[in-house]
């Protein structure tokens, strides 16, 4: 079972935190800090597995993490999950985010936390892996987003306009209009008598 999924940046600021076990608010923040502390000390070329910190269950639980650019993706799991499998799961998660946000970067995660939660909800439910097929996940998420947009009413009009323009299929506009040498022959008009 997955106990928690945390995403934080190189300075320890949480970008996403989802706990599948009950902890108080203070404990959750302490866990994030402790996990950041443990993970940031690791060198680049060591293995991606760590014993869990004391707050999250000690040596029964493992932290499996991956470091992408400025973000750490940390999954805290117990012994019933396969470590190598979770590494692959993190990879699938990041690829899904990439597909949904188009070249995802940290700013996307910062400004669209709720969307990231929705994507995660399609992958992991109650601490267990729900779906691992990237296309399937994206289809579901898109369908739900469409439902939201259709309900948005007048407040959503600007957003709808923007997305309509993005999806518009315009034929390629000619960049230069090159009128070459057109010799316009002026017809010989008969003299009017």
């Amino acid at each position, binding site marked *: 079972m997955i106990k928690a999924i945390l995403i934080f940046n190189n300075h320890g600021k*949480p970008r*996403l*935190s*989802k706990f*599948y076990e*009950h902890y108080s*608010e203070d404990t959750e*923040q302490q866990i994030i800090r402790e996990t950041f502390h443990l993970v940031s000390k690791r*060198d680049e*070329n*060591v*293995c*991606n*597995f*760590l*014993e869990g910190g004391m707050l999250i269950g000690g040596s029964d639980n493992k932290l499996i993490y991956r470091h992408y650019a400025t973000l750490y993706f940390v999954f805290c799991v117990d012994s019933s999950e*396969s*470590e*190598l*499998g979770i*590494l*692959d*799961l993190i990879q*699938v998660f990041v690829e899904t985010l990439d597909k949904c946000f188009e070249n995802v970067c940290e700013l996307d995660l*910062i*400004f669209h*936390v*709720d969307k990231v*939660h*929705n994507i995660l*909800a399609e992958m992991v*439910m*109650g*601490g*267990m*892996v*729900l*779906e*691992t*097929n990237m*296309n*399937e996940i994206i289809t*579901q998420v898109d*369908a*739900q987003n469409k*439902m*939201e947009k259709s*309900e*948005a009413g007048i*407040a959503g009009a600007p957003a709808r306009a923007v997305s309509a323009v993005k999806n518009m299929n315009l034929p390629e506009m000619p960049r230069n209009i090159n009128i070459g040498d057109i010799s316009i022959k002026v017809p010989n008009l008969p003299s009017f008598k």
Partner: protein
Amino acid sequence: MPAPIRLRELIRTIRTARTQAEEREMIQKECAAIRSSFREEDNTYRCRNVAKLLYMHMLGYPAHFGQLECLKLIASQKFTDKRIGYLGAMLLLDERQDVHLLMTNCIKNDLNHSTQYVQGLALCTLGCMGSSEMCRDLAGEVEKLLKTSNSYLRKKAALCAVHVIRKVPELMEMFLPATKNLLSEKNHGVLHTSVVLLTEMCERSPDMLSHFRKLVPQLVRILKNLIMSGYSPEHDVSGISDPFLQVRILRLLRILGRSDDDSSEAMNDILAQVATNTETSKNVGNAILYETVLTIMDIKSESGLRVLAINILGRFLLNNDKNIRYVALTSLLKTVQTDHNAVQRHRSTIVDCLKDLDVSIKRRAMELSFALVNGNNIRGMMKELLYFLDSCDPEFKADCASGVFLAAEKYAPSKRWHIDTIMRVLTTAGSYVRDDSVPNLIQLITNSVEMHAYTVQRLYKALLDDISQQPLVQVSSWCIGEYGDLLVSGQCEEEEPIQDEVLDVLEGLLVSNLSTPVTRGYALTAIMKLSTRFSSVNRIKKVVSIYGSSIDVELQQRAVEYNALFKKYDHMRPALLERMPIMEKTATNGPTEIVQTNGETEPSVLDTKHPPPVTQPANQVRTLKQFWYLHSVLCCCSDPVSPWTFQLQLLSPSSNVVPALNQGTVTQVIRVLNPQKQQLRMRIKLTYTHKGSPVQDLAEVNNFPPQSWQ
């Protein structure tokens, strides 16, 4: 009131804060705005406000006032509201708040909603944070959804069922009929979650386990299709078809085959096929292989398959990827008990992993190395492990030192090697050695009689170099106290110190700042013992009297008692400070046996022991020696002794030797001060060796004439 700002605006504003205090201020302002907006019961902007609240919650600020609002959002008709509402419920609520029960009705309605996404949301929330009451109420709905044909809902219902079973195990039977045709699904998502559900049911109940054993052929068939199916673009991950599902099925097969021969046999072929056909160039292939190996080791597989599995693990150890090496070491650790010989083949690779830079790998390699040590490879392995002890991080040193001691004790090829190894550990990792190893070492040294001279000489040299490592200092000072005569007598191979040098060293320990109080106690006792072994008694008397006024209470008590030994009881001093006998190892106390007392009214049991025999004829009763309570203090035992109502004075026995065959006797006078006129009783315990085997004799004297104590 102006419209509340959007989430994006809030995030942007917070990011412009330059200090924590500024951020806190902004958030507090926004919280106040949100709170007043909640009070106004504004439906249009509630969703936006809760989203902002969730963001602030993630940053660590209190957000509990939004819990009821989440419930209102869930009850709304709009999908957008429901989405944020359920997310808020999952993040902010848990079963400790009573509020969460109000959700039950909403979830029930939503589980029967016409839109599948709403049903999905409800299932997701129930599966994440449903309490046992909620689960009990809604289990029926979940079970209904488990039988639907909609694969999106079916997979979510399966995981929700797992959560329900975890919370309320009695409901497991309810889901049994629905599982009947779960495995005939085509959709991989449903297959995956169904396997998870079956795994959970099998792990929880042995009846279910035997019920589901009949599914093994079906699982084998699914696995075979996955491997043989060739390229299928929708499930492909790095060239392998749905590795997640393969791993899950392998895990379920492991549980089903665990103690069952028939199932294990049915799986043998497919396991061999997976093990040989999976590509190992990418992590996915290795994940599947790893799971296969674990399954093979756990079920009752045939030996050829087991050897194949361990060879795969051996190959993993040579892989460049650190993660693979880590999992290989972990699995080898699990199997080393059962398949010891097979793992021995990879010993050299494992020992190489000790030199790895990664802390997790080093720890695993160390544990595995200790498990692999046996009588044949002890010398080579110990060399590597001692080298590792020298160079490893402090967090490993304690465990490594204990491991070395245990291994040396079990497999030491010779006493000299054993003592050398112990010396090496004490000098390199001395301060990390565990506290209980000092008495154990002392006991070990006492028992290796022929090594006393060698040991004390080496310990003395080590002490000259370095007095900062307390366990080393304690063992050394004890040995010098015991065997100081051997140290200066010329039995050692190299230049021996003179008596004054030895006393200088011991006195240096007493005054040094590096010595702990315990160490000082050892040093003082050692000096005292040397009073019978060395000739410079006056010097020792002086040292002991100085410490009679020490601030440290323990030291003071010892010094005062030793002073008394010099003055009033000088005739007993040689007897008391004699060589210690060979100690039996007791589990709870230290190496010595102490004088026992039986309550307040009876005199002490006189425990009799004898010195280590060097050469003595077999049929002569060994000499009797008495150990006084004081002597047990000398040996640093810490057993409490009940208060005395008698005072005993033991005088020296008349002779050292009891002649054999009843040709003579040994008399010892005991003076008893009995102010409370209690009845005298005496119990004697005789321990001696007869023809090499130890004999013990107990006797009680009850019939002291009443005039002696009235």
